Each structure stands twice: as C-alpha cells, then as structure tokens.
C-alpha cells in the first residue's frame, strides 16, 4: 500500500520529461548562438539557451499542436523566449541542477521588455543529446517570492533561486497555457507612451509632491512602505524596496460601500532621468483581507480631467494596478479610487 501523503509530487521524481535532441536541433542552435555570441562563455550559454529553447518548442508543439509557437528572433545573451498565443515563455537553460540552484539574471525579472509569463528551467545534457524539462515558475509567483524573502544574493547580476521554488510538474505549464487568459498573470508594461503631455497646468488643491518623495520626504497623510506593514494596516503583500525608488501608501476609506473596510493606494516613484519621473499606482486590500472587493475602479486622470487609464478589480484580485507611466517634474495628474458611485480622488504633482 502506498501512503498518499508521502507521494505528493513524487511521481515526477520517477518520471522526468526528457526531450530527445536530433541533429537538426544542434545545427539550429549553432546558428542561433553564432548570431549572438561574442564572448566565448556567453556564446556557450546562448548555445545552451538555444538548445533549451528548441527542446521546449518541440515539447510544447508536441502537446499543443493546434497553437502556433513563435521564437523570439531577437535572441539575447541573457535569455531567449518563445511565444504561444498571448503567453511568453522565458528559457533558463543549465547544464545540471545537482546543486538545486537556478540562476536567473536580474534583468529578466526587472525589465518590462525582458519579463515573461513563465520562466522554464531546462537541463541541457549536451553530450547525451537531450533536454530535460525540470520545472517552471509563473511571473507572479516569482515576484511574490522576491517580495517575501530577503533578496537572495546576487552573483554576476543573477539571482540564485532554490529549485524547490519552481513548479516541478511540467503539465501545469500546458494547462496554464490552454486554460488561462494571459491577463490573469499580469506583467509590468514598458511605458512607450509619454503621458506627461496630458498632465499639464495646475489645480488649486492639496497636491502630493512626488519629486520630494525621492528626497525622502513624504507628504502628510502618506505612510512609508515600512509603516504600511504595522499591525494597523498589515498588508499581506510586501512590496520590494530599493534605493532608487520611493514608495508611499495611503489608506482609502470608501465608507459604507466597503462596509467600513479600507484599501491602500500604493504609489511608487522612480527617477527616470533628471527631469522625468516614473510612477506606478497599485491598490491593495488591508488587514486580514486577501482579495480586493470586486468592481473597485482605479483611474488615472490628466490635469484636464481626461481619463487616461482605468483598471477594475475582478473576483479574487489580490491587487490591481495601473500601467507605469512617466512625466516631467512639475506636471500634474490625479488618481481616483471608486466603488460604484463613491469616489476618492488624489491629486499629484511630479
């Protein structure tokens, strides 16, 4: 008799997903790495990445033949990518995982243009001509992990993450790909549009001065991110802190609409250039609440009152956020939190 509790996930210890490589894979990988590789060791890593990429492509195509898979032709030294439908898959290729450490370049987590919905760990056994699909991680899980733990040490600009953090059941990747809407794993979006043009002139009201935040001065009514984790608000989710950015949160009370419960509006500002500031806005539940109430709206308005962006919570959203936007110092904008017809508006100056 087998005791079920001891076997959770142990089937995967007996049954790995092995993808056999054929001669044509090696030819393609060589071509790819020649396109990219300049320095020898980077070239080797690119070669492994390419073999991993081809293995993953084969694996996915074999199991989901109805969907077209595209390789990101813009191969990079750090990572290469596949796209299928709306999903983006980042390939982390490695020679072995005996140390149970997955090395992930920091850039592919931080830079919006380099992030992926899934980070897939592939072990490339070059001499045995095979690729083993080891495990993978969703972007949101990765971000959550990094927010929760003390940041793991960096080595050569890479995080050393424990293999156990990753999902060892490759089938989950298939099912996510087939059953989920890509928007349920939200990725940061690179701001291509400069909203600052719309954020002109002045409004005679108390305005939160965000440029001061970067000098360490928070306006009254705003709480530092450290304070946000006191017992009073006890955010379940802890945002990451970093030197170049400032975060501030404000408790928003929508009164009876939320049954007296509060939500936190969290604003993150980054120096983009000496004149430009990048802003992120997120809304979180407080206290014991894991999820935001549904139908909560978060809207960005220009100074002239034009709605520039809007997002709305659905059932069981842990948080909602606006796409990060940029503007020049001195420009104005507003953010509004609404529940049905009750709204709270905050005005800002960059």
């Amino acid at each position, binding site marked *: 008799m087998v005791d079920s509790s001891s076997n959770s996930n142990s*089937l995967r210890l007996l049954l790995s997903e092995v993808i056999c490589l054929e001669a044509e894979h090696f030819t393609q990988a060589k071509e790819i790495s020649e396109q990219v590789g300049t320095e020898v060791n980077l070239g080797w890593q690119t070669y492994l990445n390419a073999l991993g990429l081809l293995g993953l492509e084969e694996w996915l195509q074999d199991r989901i033949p109805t969907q077209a898979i595209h390789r990101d032709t813009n191969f990079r030294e750090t990572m290469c990518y596949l796209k299928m439908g709306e999903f983006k898959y980042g390939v982390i290729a490695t020679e072995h995982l005996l140390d149970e450490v997955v090395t992930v370049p920091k850039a592919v987590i931080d830079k919006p243009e380099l992030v992926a919905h899934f980070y897939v760990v592939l072990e490339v056994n070059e001499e045995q001509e095979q690729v083993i699909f080891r495990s993978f991680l969703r972007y949101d899980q990765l971000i959550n992990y990094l927010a929760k733990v003390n940041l793991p040490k960096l080595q050569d600009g890479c995080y050393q993450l424990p293999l156990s953090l990753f999902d060892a059941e490759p089938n989950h990747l298939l099912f996510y790909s087939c059953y989920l809407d890509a928007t349920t794993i939200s990725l940061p979006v690179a701001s291509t549009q400069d909203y600052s043009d719309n954020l002109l002139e002045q409004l005679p009201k108390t305005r939160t001065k965000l440029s001061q935040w970067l000098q360490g001065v928070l306006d009254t009514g705003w709480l530092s991110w450290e304070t946000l984790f006191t017992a009073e608000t006890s955010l379940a989710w802890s945002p990451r802190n970093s030197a170049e950015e400032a975060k501030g949160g404000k408790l928003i009370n929508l009164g009876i609409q939320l049954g007296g419960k509060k939500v936190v509006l969290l604003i993150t500002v980054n120096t983009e250039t000496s004149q430009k500031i990048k802003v992120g806005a997120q809304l979180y539940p407080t206290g014991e609440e894991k999820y935001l109430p549904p139908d909560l709206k978060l809207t960005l308005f220009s100074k002239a009152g034009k709605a520039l962006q809007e997002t709305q919570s659905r059932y069981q959203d842990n948080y909602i956020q606006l796409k990060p936007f940029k503007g020049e110092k001195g420009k104005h904008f507003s953010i509004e939190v609404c529940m049905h017809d009750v709204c709270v508006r905050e005005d800002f100056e960059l």
Partner: protein
Amino acid sequence: MKTLSRYWKICRISLNNEKTRYEYFLVSTAQKFFNQIFSSLCNSPEKDIQTTLNDYFNCNNSSVAKIDRSIAGLCLRCYVSYPILKACQKIDYLFAGAKQFTYEDLLPFVLNDDGKTLIVLDKNNKNQLMVTDKGQTITATYPFFTVDVVRTYQFDSRTSMSLDNWAYLQTKQNREIKNFLSEFGFQHLSDWALLNRARLLQLESLSTRSSHLIKVFHSVYRRDRVKQQHKGVRRCPDPNEAQLQEMLVYLQKQNIIIKTTVELLKELKQVAKQLRQYDIWSYREPLESYDLDTDSYTLRADLPNNSLNELDLEEREVLEFLQTSLVLALREGIEQEISNRITKLAKSQKYALFAQKFIFGLQLYYCQGMSLSKIAPQLGMTSWDQARRILNPGDLLSKVRTLTTQKLLDKILDLMKSKGLTKVPLKPDYLKTLLKRIEAFVDEEIFQEAAAEIKAGKNRSLDSLYAQQLRIYSKQKAKPIKE
C-alpha cells in the same frame, strides 16, 4: 495536510516486494503508543507532536521506562523514513542523464532501519543503545540512519528547519551515499564532459588554480564543441594539441605557467578527478531562506496550500466524480496518445519505417516483458538508444498521464459550470489547486504504480492498471507482422 500514520508506518527495505525495493511496514507498538499519548492532541501542529515524542525519547530520568523511550523514538524513526526515501529519489532525479544507478541502489545506505529493534540514546546523546527484552541496554551493532537523523535534529529551536527537510539534507550528506555517488554518479561522463558542465558555483569550491584551469578550458573547448556537435560528434573527445596549446597561452596570461601540453592534459585530468566528488556538485548550504536578523535559516514559505473548500465543491462529490470518470479517461488517453505517436513516426524522416511496428514493440515490452535492448533487434532497430527514442515507454506513460488529467479537468470544469461555479477568467492559483487535486488522485490510482514498475530493474512485473489497459488496447490493435 498531516497524515498521522507516518508516525507508525515505516518505510523500509523489502526483499519481498516485486516492484520496488521498499515497503511500508506497520509498527503496531508505535501506533499504540502514539494513540495513547496523542489521543486528544491529534490536531496539534506537527512540530509539537515531534517535540513531545522527542522529549519522551530523550528523557534520561527514570520517570519514563526505557521501553517507552525507545518506542517514542520509533515513532520518529517512522516519520523520517519518508523524507529519506524521497531524498534518494530526488538524487536519482537530479542526476538524470545516462547515470548508472537508480535510487534503489542508494536505499541500503540510509533506509537500514528494520522498524523493530528498540533503540535509545546513551547519556551523551551520541551512541545508539539497543533495548533488550529485559529492559537492559547494550551498544547497538548496526546503528540506524533514521536514529542519527532524529538525534542530530534540533527539536527545540523554533527557527530551525522542518524535520522533513533536515532528513533530506542529512540523506544528501550521508557519507556512504556521497562515496557511492562519487564513484558511480559521474561514471558515464568523460573527463571532458565533466569539465564542460561545471558551473560557477562548482568552481567556487575548487582551488584558484583549478578554477582558472577550468575557465580556460571552457573558453577554448566550448567554442569548438559547438562546431563538433554540429558535425555529429557526440561524445566529448580529448582536447587536441592545438586546443591545448591555445589554453597554455591563456593560462600564461594569468600567470599560470605550465610547460607542455602533456603536463596540461595531466593537470586537467586531475581537476576532473576532483569534480567526480559529489560534494563539489551539491550545494553546501541548505536552501532554506536565511534570516539575517536571527542569523538562522527559516522555513521556506510553502506554496499556497489551498484546500478543496475554495473550489466550492465537496470533497466527496469530487472523489465520486473522479472515480467514475477515471478508467474511461485512461482508455481514451491511451488510445489517443498511441495514435498520435504512430502518426508522428509516420511523418518523421528518420523513423517512418517504425510507425507500423510501434504496437508490436509495445506488445513485446508490456506483454512479453522484454527489455528495450532485446526489443531493438526484433524490430530491426540499430541500438538500445534508438529503441528508447522510438518506443519510449516513459514518455508514453507521461503523455497518457497528461491526457488523463486533462480529460478529468475538462469534466470537472463542466461540472462546475453546470452548477454555476465557474469563475471567468480562471485564476492561476485556482487552476493549480484543481490540478494538484486531480494529479494526486490519478497518480495514486494509476500512475505512481505504473511509473515505479517501468523504473524497476530486472524481474519486474508489469501489472499496474495502466499496463493492463495498454495490453488490452495493443491486443485489439495488433496486426500480425510478417517477416
């Protein structure tokens, strides 16, 4: 979820079990003892249960009889036998490739507890003492690994890692396991392949000189290796004279003077020899999160452990539903995957010839119990490797599992839809919870056994539900092969 039976069922080596080399053995004295002590405490946290048991086990005054002490220890020995087994399987899994051992070879080193002998520790908490029928103690002739795991674990520390993880790390650190792995783990890899696959973390544990040697080796050998594979050279060959010369030049720039290529070759082989030590490859620290404030390791936050309640379906309802749909889903999965596979082979340039022999090959494997190396010539294949690539029983099993899971998932989603419970769009964590539930079920009912039996070595018997269904299907479909 806690399963209390882990405290009285021990996983131990078995000589009788045909499929695997281990069995789960019920230790009735442990069960009785556990129930006496914890009759009202079954909902206590795991850690409290373990600490209480350890307090009994370690109680050195006469208030607790030696027999009771040893039985409390037996409960803990049962408990740690599970992570020990899992650690062996994990090592096997991590080695992968063409390694020449399986986890079963590792079991005798660490799963040596018979689940019967009564053991207590001496006053210094060092040596294992056997408790005789008369309640006296004598030094144990064969110390049990389970007892060592329990003995070295810090029960009282709130921040220490879980007993499960401790057992895992101890198993990986076991001297005999390490020796075994150093001898057999990398046997299939040539010195050059081994040097080639070393990563930064491994270099850290070598001397500066060795580490430079490897870096220089990488810069020359890897560059050329890309071209070799392209030309179909599979095994990593010895570095040639030109490559060695080039390495000498690079080494000189780093002030490492080696006079001749012969000497360099010798030194590289020496480094490769070091790399055959398992210690170099396994990580030196436990990968639990490190807390700077307390200067200790804290438990890794586990992934969200959603219960079925969050799925809004009742456990019983789901189970009944899965049960009735299971065998049909398996049959459909087998049929679908075999037909996919034949179509794919028929389309392949290299393997098209074997498409019509696929079912026959399966029959040889599953009905006649032949090994792949014996099947290869029967089907006109050139090697074991070709047979593995074409028949690939493990991959077939894995895909049938995927399809079976998917069919059950579809059915459950339909069921929920009919009850108005579906949430659109489906959330990742919700889907994952659902999948884990289904996987746990199909694995326990079908695939765990099916995977274990094809993993087993000689004299295996293939009689899992999966093997049975596969036989039925292949007999229906078999066409007599002329030749």
